[in-house]
Each structure stands twice: as C-alpha cells, then as structure tokens.
C-alpha cells in the first residue's frame, strides 16, 4: 500500500483506508475501536501506516470511546471507530461527553450498514447526532472520507464537541481515487484540570446542558457557511437535497438537477435549505434509511418529498434512485421490455454463507443439536450455525446477549431442554463477562459454551485480549478465559478440543447435567486466521460409502453429493481443493469410507 508517505499523488483507496490516511494527515495521536464490519479496516490501516501514535483495539466500543475521551482530554487528537450497532454500546459515554466537551479533537467514526450486509439490523445512526446534539459529517466518496477527518478535527476543537463522522458499507468498502495531502502535526495541547466541566455531578451537568444548546446554535450558523455544504446550481424544475454516497447516485441519475449536497448534516443549514427550496419547483430529499433530513425540513415548514419515493428499507442504488424519480414523474417511465432485451429468468440458487471447511465451531453445534439443547446464539461466525444442516441456533440478538438471554430463558421456565449460551472469545471479552457474573450471582442453571478460536474471526481475524498480541502485532499480556470464569465463581469449567467429537459430547453432557453455571471452552484456532491451517486433504472411497449422510450433517462446504446412489441416497465426495484435512468427517463416518488422499500431487487419482 502506497498510502503511508505519499504526498500529492493519486492513490486508489477504500473509504476506510482513506479515513485512516485522513487521521494520519490531521495528526491523530490516539485511535481506538472495536472490530465491526464495515468499520474494521480503518484501525488496521492506521496501525500499518502510522507507527507512532497509540492505535489499539479495545474490548468493546464503550471502552474504546472512554479511552478516546481520555486521549482527547490529555490533549491528543483522537479517533474512535466502530460499526453502527457499536455506537449503541458506547452511547452511555457519547451522551455525556456531548455535555463535557473535549480538549483536543474527538472524532467518532461510525459505519452504518444499510442493506444489512453483515449486521443484525440497519439502524440509522445519524439520529445519534441529533440525540446527543453534536455535529455530523457525511462524506460521499473516498476523497471526502479522507478530507472530512481533518475538517471534523477542526470543528471538534473549534466548538469543543465530539463529532460523528458517518460512513456506510458502500462508502467504506468502495475504492476511489484519493489525492493525498500533507501529514501535519496537530497543535500541541496538554491536560487541563477543570472539574466544573468534566465532573458531571448534577449541578455541573445542568450548566453544561446550557452550553450544549449554546454550542448547537453556533453550529447552526457554521453549517450555513461551511464549504462542506455545497449548492450545485442546475435546472430550476427539480432540486435534490442529499448526502453521503446517495449524492453520487443522484448525480448519475439526474445530472441536470439542482443539488444541495450536504457534507455537514447536523445541525442542518436551514436558511440555505429554505433558499434552495425557493429556487426550485419540486424539492426532493434522497437519503438512505430514516427520513432524517426530510423530517427536519418538514419540521422547519419546508415542503419536500422523500420517503414516498425512496424507501426506508435497505440500501439505495442508482437503480432504486432512478425508480424513485420515475415514480415521482421526474423521469419518464421505463419502456416496456422488448422481446430482445428480455433475458432468461435466472434460476437463483440459495447460497448462504457457511462455516469454513474444518471450522472448529462445527462439531460443538452438531453435538448440541444431538442433545436437543436450546442454543442461545451470539454475534460471530458461529451465527452461521443457524443455517441447515446444522440449524442449531435458536436466537441471536446483539453482542454478548447470549448469556443473559440464557439466564432469562431458564429462569422464565421456557423449556425442559438444557439451555446453552454459545459465545465466541472476542464477544466474551466484549460483553460476556457481566452476564456471566449475573448467572453465578443469581444461581442460574445454564451452560455457557465459549468457542475460543483465538481471534475475532468474522471481521477478518483481529487480535483481542485473549490472543497475546495487540493491534500492532506486538506481544501483549494474554487474559485466559478459563481463569476469568473461575475467578467469577463458575464451579465447573472444562476445556475441550472441538475436533474430538466424543470428548465434546461427554464434556457438554457433563456440563448440562451440572446443577448451576457450567462453562465449556473449545480451544482450537480459527482455520483461516491469523494463518490458514491446511493439511493433506481427505477423499471418499466410494465403494465403502453407504450414503448415511452423517458427514453431510456437518454442512462442510468441501463435501458434496455425487450422482451415485446407495439405496436411494446420494453418496458423497470431497473437493480436494478446499478440504483442509481436519478429519472430522472421517471420525464421524461409520463405514470408514473417508480416508486421507494417498498422494496430493496426483490429485484426483482414484
């Protein structure tokens, strides 16, 4: 990556890489966060290109923001990154740091996921800016993603406020050309003792709330003047107010329209919006998800059209924006498809994401299903055990929810089945410890299965408190999950190798029969990260296969059916290209038909 020291050259960067470069150019000295698609690459890139500042993963977003607030109070420009739902975790701190203000810049990058590409919901975090009464910046391409970090720092310091820089999946994971700027040192500041500002006892908090409203009025004025908001004059018949990546779609679909392109979207420049509205015949708001801009315009008495034509659901695309303008009568309706333009109907194949070949999470779920356990899921790769054929997980809500929900399901008397919470190692450190305290404290009769694969796998393999390395790859103190559980008072803590099928079975059976809280920890590393694990692949000796389908119950992407049948059932075959040789299917096979491939270089020899 040529983004570490290049100046005034043009480089192709993703939105996330551009934000990292922006952080470097604006002298960010503290950067924290918790991995979460689509925000993860920001800190990874920054750790790679900036070797001097403090760049680190925190165990969760609230801790990351707390560290960030401290960094800003210490006088260092600070960046905190998270995905949209992460800001829910950090919201407690956010709402109050809005009162105290900051000393050096505090920029919170929050990456929303319209379309729910890799999340549990598609909440619109722009609403947080209004909730906390702090400024909101929305870049619309990689160049702006980089430049807006610097702008956000200046706004943060000038108005003594945290700033939200909001990106979306489409922006974070799209690459575009970026003109590099210079790396400048931030103005030096130091910590200053100021309890009336930073200690939010009620008497101080009341005073600070007044300051928040005064600040908001100043920000409204700033919003009218800042070049972050741009009036692009075009046709007087149609005007469009838009922000973020939707701006690109509007320009592509309606190149002639007048556009009020907003980069600074809270507080809104209402005077400018009024003048813009008066200059056009019809006024539209094109925004993804919630009618945030639209509602504010309407509350200000400005007639706009928006969600009637541009859905609140999912991600907008050029196609959906075009359809919206067609529905509104701005664009002519599409011609009916001619015979020549009709394409054959696609036979769409259901291809859900799946656990990788050799994934150590597979066997525990197979066993839990066999035990007819009520499995309470959590956030991570293992959520994929919801799909057939594993189909073992019955609930998944939010980070760390599994253990608390399991307590409630058991105490609420939902079932006579064993209640098992399943949670990954990174998620356990994120928010699994307080609910485990609850379980011990209140005498729950549940089993907690901690799937420890020594990484944050779903987001691409980030280190955490249990891996022994920090974000920079340096050796760090390792926090051992088993010791944590014992220290919390869990009486039965067992560690098991998830590839050892009988041991998993025995261990989980013993755990669910324990009268109290039991913890089972599986301890095999992820087969993908930090390094791919591969040994010689296995193959199926077809004559021995009795098509019992036991191996197919794993849902392993390397095993599939052949056209050969045994008493009506498909025999199976293993793809040597993707099989990593974990041998779990061979262990399950009752006829010992699954054997190591004799000579790897010979390929499909049989």
């Amino acid at each position: 990556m040529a983004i570490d020291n290049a100046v005034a050259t043009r480089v192709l960067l993703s939105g996330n890489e551009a934000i990292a470069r922006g952080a470097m150019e604006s002298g960010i000295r503290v950067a924290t966060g918790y991995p979460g698609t689509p925000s993860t690459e920001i800190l990874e890139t920054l750790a790679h290109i900036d070797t001097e500042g403090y760049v680190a993963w925190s165990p969760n977003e609230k801790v990351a923001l707390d560290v960030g607030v401290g960094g800003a109070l210490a006088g260092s420009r600070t960046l905190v990154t998270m995905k949209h739902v992460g800001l829910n975790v950090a919201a407690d701190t956010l709402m109050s740091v809005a009162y105290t203000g900051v000393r050096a810049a505090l920029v919170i990058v929050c990456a929303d996921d319209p379309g729910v590409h890799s999340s549990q919901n598609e909440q619109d975090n722009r609403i947080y800016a209004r909730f906390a009464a702090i400024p909101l910046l929305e870049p619309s391409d990689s160049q702006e993603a980089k430049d807006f970090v610097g702008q956000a720092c200046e706004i943060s310091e000038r108005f003594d406020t945290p700033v939200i820089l909001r990106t979306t999946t489409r922006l974070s994971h799209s690459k575009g050309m970026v003109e590099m700027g210079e790396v400048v040192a931030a103005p030096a500041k130091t910590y200053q003792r100021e309890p009336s500002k930073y200690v939010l006892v009620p008497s101080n908090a009341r005073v600070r709330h007044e300051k928040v409203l005064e600040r908001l009025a100043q920000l409204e004025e700033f919003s009218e003047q800042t070049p972050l908001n741009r009036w692009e004059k075009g046709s007087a018949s149609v005007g469009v107010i838009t922000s973020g990546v939707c701006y690109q779609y509007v320009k592509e679909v309606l190149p002639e329209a007048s556009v009020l392109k907003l980069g600074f979207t809270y507080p809104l420049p209402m005077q400018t919006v009024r003048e813009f509205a008066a200059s056009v015949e019809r006024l539209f708001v094109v925004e993804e998800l919630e009618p945030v801009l639209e509602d504010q315009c309407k509350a200000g008495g400005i007639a706009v059209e928006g969600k009637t034509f541009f859905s609140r659901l999912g991600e907008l695309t050029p196609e959906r924006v075009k359809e919206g303008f067609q529905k509104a009568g701005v664009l002519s309706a599409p011609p009916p498809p001619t015979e020549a333009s009709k394409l054959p109907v696609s036979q769409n194949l259901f291809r859900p994401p799946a656990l990788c070949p050799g994934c150590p999470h597979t066997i525990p779920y197979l066993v839990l299903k066999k035990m007819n356990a009520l499995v309470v899921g959590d956030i991570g790769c293992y959520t994929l055990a919801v799909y057939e054929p594993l189909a073992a997980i019955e609930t998944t809500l939010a980070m760390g929810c599994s253990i608390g929900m399991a307590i409630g399901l058991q105490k609420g008397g939902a079932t006579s089945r064993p209640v098992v919470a399943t949670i990954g190692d990174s998620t356990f450190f994120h928010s699994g410890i307080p609910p485990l305290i609850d379980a011990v404290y209140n005498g729950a009769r549940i089993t907690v299965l901690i799937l420890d694969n020594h990484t944050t796998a779903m987001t691409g393999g980030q280190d955490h408190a249990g891996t022994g390395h920090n974000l920079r790859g340096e050796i760090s103190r390792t926090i051992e999950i088993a010791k944590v559980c014992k220290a919390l008072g869990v009486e039965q803590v067992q560690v098991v190798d998830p590839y050892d099928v009988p041991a998993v079975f025995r261990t989980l059976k013993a755990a669910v029969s324990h009268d109290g809280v039991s913890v089972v920890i599986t301890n095999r590393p992820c087969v993908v990260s930090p390094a791919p694990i591969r040994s010689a692949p296995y193959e199926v000796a077809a004559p021995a296969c009795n098509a019992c389908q036991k191996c197919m119950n794993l849902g392993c992407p390397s095993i599939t059916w052949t056209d050969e049948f045994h008493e009506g059932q498909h025999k199976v075959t293993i793809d040597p290209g993707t099989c990593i040789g974990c041998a779990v299917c061979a262990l399950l096979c009752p006829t010992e038909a699954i054997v190591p491939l004799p000579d790897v270089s010979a390929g499909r020899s049989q």
Partner: protein
Amino acid sequence: MENGQVQNVLIVGVGGQGVLTASDILASVCLASGYDVKKSEVHGMAKRGGVVYTHVRYGRKVLSPLIEPGASDVLLAFEPAEALRWSKYLKPGGTLITNLGQRVPPASCLDRRPQAAVCYPQEIQRSLRQQRGDVRALDAESLATELGNPKVSNTVLLGVLSNVCEFSAEDWTNAIERSVKPQAREVNRRAFLAGRNLQFPAAEEEPAAAPAQEAAASLAIADIEIRETWCKGCEICVVVCPQNCLKMNDARKAVVADASSCIRCMLCEWLCPDLAVNVH
C-alpha cells in the same frame, strides 16, 4: 471507449474464489492506464462461502460505485450458477465470461427423500448458451490444473477478460505480478496467457439434452422397532443416527423420537451391540 463513457465490469463468484483479488488487479490496470476508477464490494459475513460480487467502473470520471442492472459491459463469473444469478446486470450485447466449474453449496444437498436431485440449476450450460450476445464459457479449473496449480484459475479468467477490455497484455501481466508472490509469478503469467489465447466461440458440440430428472420419491415412514428388554441404554444408536430419529427416555432406554425423518441408513440396527433395533 468514447470520451465521457464509463465502462462497467461486474465480477461475481463464491467466497474464497479470488473474486476480490481479480477486481483489485483490474482496478490497478485501469489506474495504470490513467482512468478514474471506482470499485465496490462486500466483506464480512457475506464472504464465508456466500455470494461475492464486486463492481468495477472506469472512465474519465466515475460517479456511482455501483453498476445498474442491464448496464454492465462485461459480466465475469467465477461460477456458473452465479453467472445466472447476475445475468440481469449484463447489458444487451454485453460479454459474459464464465467459468464452468460448479461450487455446489451444502444447502443444495438437504433433500433426503430417495433419488432426490441436488438443488442446483439444471442444464446450466444450456441456460448460459441461451444468453444473448457474446458468451465465453470455459472450464478454468481444468486449464489451471493442467498448468500445475488449480488456484490460478482466476488468472486464467483474467486472461479471457483481457481480450474484452482494451488494455495491453503488458499492463495486465505487470498488474498480476504486483499482486502475487515472486515464486507464483511464472505460473500466473502462463495462466494469464492460457486464458488470453482461448478462442471463442469454442468449437463445442451442443451436449445432448440431460435426461429428465426423476422426481424424488417420497419415503414411506420407517417402522423402527426397539426391544426395550434387550436395550441396556448404551445410547450408541441415538448418537449414531444422522437424522436424530431416536432419543433416550427417562428410564435410560432408547426410544423413537421421530420416525418420519428416518432415511433407512440402518446404522442403528447394525451398530446396536444388543441387537435390540430393527428398521422395517
């Protein structure tokens, strides 16, 4: 390409096939040739064996990072069912390049009625041939395996793509070399040329129509008989049953939980040490 026009290339496939690497190579070729480029893709959960797509757009000035359906000049598919899924993005008269090596997902192998078919688009090659316009279908894995490394199939596909996009072979090979380890450069160079030198339409015969798939027969519900007095409660039959038909009752005896999902694999009958189980 005319001035002011934007060229759209949609690359699709399955997680782990190298779709994103291929799009990075294409983007860097565009960049080296002085174009504005935008590229959009998915990460995270969608990648794990699921559907992966990446939009690459290049031209003098590119606005939206996304391609509209019916607007892609080229659709490059790493997997034939994905070619079908995304074919609506192809512009009339656009070029479809597709690998024919199938990736059948576990979710396609769930129907356990006797003689059930794999749930995967049937007659896929015929459907692909019915696409109007320029269709370039090849078995990239076979070509790559012949070259000694099945993993370079994505470079073979880039070789085919190189005849459709207007960049020089040198720009392509430079970009490919930058993206692979030094020891893999030679095989990737050969893979690129193998793809680039393929002739389309290949002089292939229309394959004979596939025999009509026999409908899966429904299964008469099995009668699983367990002699309670012979059963000593070892649980082997319960553990071994792939369909979870059996369970242990409170008296630690094996009983039938759900006979309707039995596929008559006979494992319980064969493996019972007490000869207590019979499947009729």
